[in-house]
């Protein structure tokens, strides 16, 4: 008998800890028969996935799994008394069909143990077959075998660029030098993506294992995990996992009684998006400003402290034990011809089932959004899907049958990226989205090269004036020209991909740009400078809610009499529109 309470980021935010405490308390005091009590444990697990319905609780009893959704602490007592002690699940709180659909089309490789194993318990990981792939590799394989196996699996880097992992390892192996490093890149800076965080919080040992196998393959004896300081729980769990691994002598000297030695050190990132770029990350570990340098030389030849260095993403490394355990052929059977395996996405935005999903490469966007995601929240039509974060693009609703893999997404001007997938509906303005991402890349640009530093600034200025209704007739051409210049002339991946959100929205949503520039209108009603608010006097009840909410004092009117907005004073903040219960405030 096991009770699992989701303690992922969203689970904790929804009150997972309180629910967990309530279970612990209820189970100990509610007079559960001793027999049940002995086998009954409630433990915390990483992300179960369907964050929109948090707190999710699974009750495993007599081999049956029952899932409850939206669990609050005051519901725990009844679940314990009726389901745990009695034998009748509380019907009205059970997870609905959304939950079943959410999991049906997913294939869990990286996330298979997330939400199942206690991430703070190394024994649970070992009992599930963990560290066995490492033992096998260290004791009976030679490094070249590992590289061949990883190459045969076809896995490509999950950090965004999609470089073949096996090839990267091979290049580092062949690189001259006795001292080599392996770095795990956990500096997940993409706003709206939390896959790496979920993997580390949910199954840190799989990442350590991936690092061990990788280090053996390339011949490194020292590894670093570069992780964001903004992820305190992930850092804590990783520290604990590393400590446990040292205690079992899976790290340190003479691992598994071989002469292989490997140490892992954690380096905390300090909040710079550009540090996701390999050479910038290396500079940051060396304690400097995280600025990229020209390549070549590539890090596999000259990286950290001028030594050959491999940098792999968290998700890539977490795949490695699975590949070794089941063989490259099993892994390669998932996905498409050129994109193998699965990919974890953070499915968010205007979608019903927000959450963390893992799907085989090549699945269509339609399946992700309508089958797994349950469709659009709020019933408005789908407008676009944004993938790849600030380096990616917006894919219009008309392309929903597109397959999700490296090549297909690149062909429409987006990228797989680290795995953010944000669903947009008719209420989202595409010019505003482009501006949002450029704002982000502009402020994160390190400033080393001119095309990125100055170019993104100019892009932002143009987009800003368009959203303020001051766009000029030739602005769209200017944006395109500037974007192409930045793409081809920037030093690193940040600048080379920064214009993608602008180019893709220009390509697929040109009419919307035109509406802003020519008609001075924002069709999605987002750009506030282009909106005017007015009160429909026939509908207004004179309740005064808008008058109170207006921060500018632009609304006047006597009690129970229709109110008015003074357009000269109005700052277009939309507060009146939000508070009006009678929908009498209109905007256009």
């Amino acid at each position, binding site marked *: 008998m096991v009770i699992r309470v989701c303690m992922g980021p969203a689970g904790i935010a929804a009150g997972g800890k309180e629910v967990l405490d309530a279970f612990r308390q209820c189970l100990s005091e509610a007079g559960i028969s001793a027999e049940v009590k002995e086998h009954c444990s409630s433990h915390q697990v990483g992300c179960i996935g369907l964050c929109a319905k948090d707190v999710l609780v699974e009750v495993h009893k007599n081999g049956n799994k029952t899932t409850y959704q939206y669990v609050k602490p005051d519901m725990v007592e009844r679940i314990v008394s009726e389901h745990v002690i009695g034998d009748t699940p509380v019907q009205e709180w059970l997870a609905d069909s959304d939950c079943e659909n959410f999991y049906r089309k997913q294939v869990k490789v990286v996330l298979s143990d997330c939400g199942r194993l206690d991430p703070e318990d190394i024994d649970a990981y070992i009992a599930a077959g963990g560290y066995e792939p490492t033992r096998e590799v260290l004791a009976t394989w030679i490094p070249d075998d590992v590289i061949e196996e990883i190459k045969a699996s076809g896995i490509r880097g999950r950090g965004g660029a999609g470089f073949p992992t096996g090839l990267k390892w091979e290049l580092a192996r062949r690189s001259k030098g006795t001292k080599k490093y392996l770095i795990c890149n956990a500096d997940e800076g993409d706003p*709206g993506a939390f896959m790496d965080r979920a993997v580390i919080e949910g199954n840190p040992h799989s990442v350590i294992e991936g690092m061990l196998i990788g280090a053996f393959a390339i011949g490194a004896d020292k590894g670093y995990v570069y992780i964001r300081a903004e*992820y305190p729980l992930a850092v804590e769990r990783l520290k604990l996992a590393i400590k446990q691994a040292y205690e079992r002598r899976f790290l340190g000297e003479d691992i598994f009684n071989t002469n292989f030695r490997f140490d892992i050190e954690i380096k905390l990132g300090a*909040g710079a998006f550009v540090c996701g770029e390999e050479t910038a990350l290396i500079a940051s570990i060396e*304690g400097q400003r995280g600025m990229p340098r020209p390549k070549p030389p590539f890090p596999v030849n000259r990286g950290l402290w001028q030594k050959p260095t491999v940098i792999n993403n968290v998700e890539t490394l977490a795949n490695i034990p699975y590949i070794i355990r089941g063989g490259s052929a099993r892994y390669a059977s998932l996905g498409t011809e050129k994109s193998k395996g699965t990919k974890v996405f953070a499915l*968010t*935005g205007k979608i019903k089932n927000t959450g963390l999903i893992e799907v085989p490469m090549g699945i269509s966007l339609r399946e992700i959004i309508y089958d797994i995601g349950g469709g659009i929240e709020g019933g408005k039509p789908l407008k676009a899907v944004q993938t790849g974060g600030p380096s990616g693009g917006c894919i219009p609703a008309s392309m929903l049958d597109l397959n999700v893999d490296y090549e297909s997404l690149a062909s429409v001007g987006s990228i797989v990226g680290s795995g953010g997938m944000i669903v947009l509906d008719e209420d*989202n303005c595409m010019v505003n*989205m482009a501006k*949002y991402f450029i704002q982000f890349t502009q402020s994160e640009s390190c400033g080393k090269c001119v095309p990125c530093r100055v170019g993104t600034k100019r892009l932002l200025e143009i987009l800003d004036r368009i959203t303020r209704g001051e766009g000029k007739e030739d602005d769209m051409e200017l944006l395109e020209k500037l974007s192409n210049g930045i793409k081809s002339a920037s030093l690193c991946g940040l600048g080379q991909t920064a214009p993608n959100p602008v180019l893709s929205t220009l390509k697929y949503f040109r009419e919307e740009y035109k509406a802003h520039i020519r008609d001075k209108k924002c069709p999605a009603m987002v750009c506030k400078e282009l909106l005017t608010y007015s009160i429909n006097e026939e509908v207004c009840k004179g309740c005064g809610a808008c008058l109170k909410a207006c921060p500018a004092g632009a609304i006047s009117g006597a009690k129970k009499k229709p109110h008015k907005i003074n357009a000269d004073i109005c700052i277009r903040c939309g*507060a009146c529109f939000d508070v009006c219960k009678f929908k009498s405030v209109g905007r256009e």
Partner: protein
Amino acid sequence: MDNILKDIIKNYHEKAGNIISLLQETQDAFGYIPREAVDFYSQELHIAGSRFYGVATFYSQFRLKPTGKNKIVACCGTACHVRGSEKIINGLKRELGLTEDEDTSQDGEFTLEKVACLGTCSFAPVVLINGSIYGKTGTETVLKEIRKLEKGK
């Protein structure tokens, strides 16, 4: 302050290149990077102060001014953005009287911090007020909480 600084710097005489960790420990202790700290490290480690400031201003984690008594963290991740975080942030700035580059109110009561992503996208838009999470929230709800804090000061 001197004792704390001496305590922090103990581990750094040997590996002087580690400016980031040194500043991280300093910020943990004081909540920001005081000028005195940089002057002290600069003398002790024979590293120019500009190098410390170079690192401190490069990474968004570091701040050179103390925070207000109450800390508001507004998530600006993409999921929050598409669900209207911009509106909430504008509302908060107006309420606290913050101009474009300020993050702390004149009276030192409130600091408004923007972060790229809190990883709780299912609750977008998300605002943290003194560590408590307000998910799927709106400008009105957040402002109400702020006004409660203002009254209680």
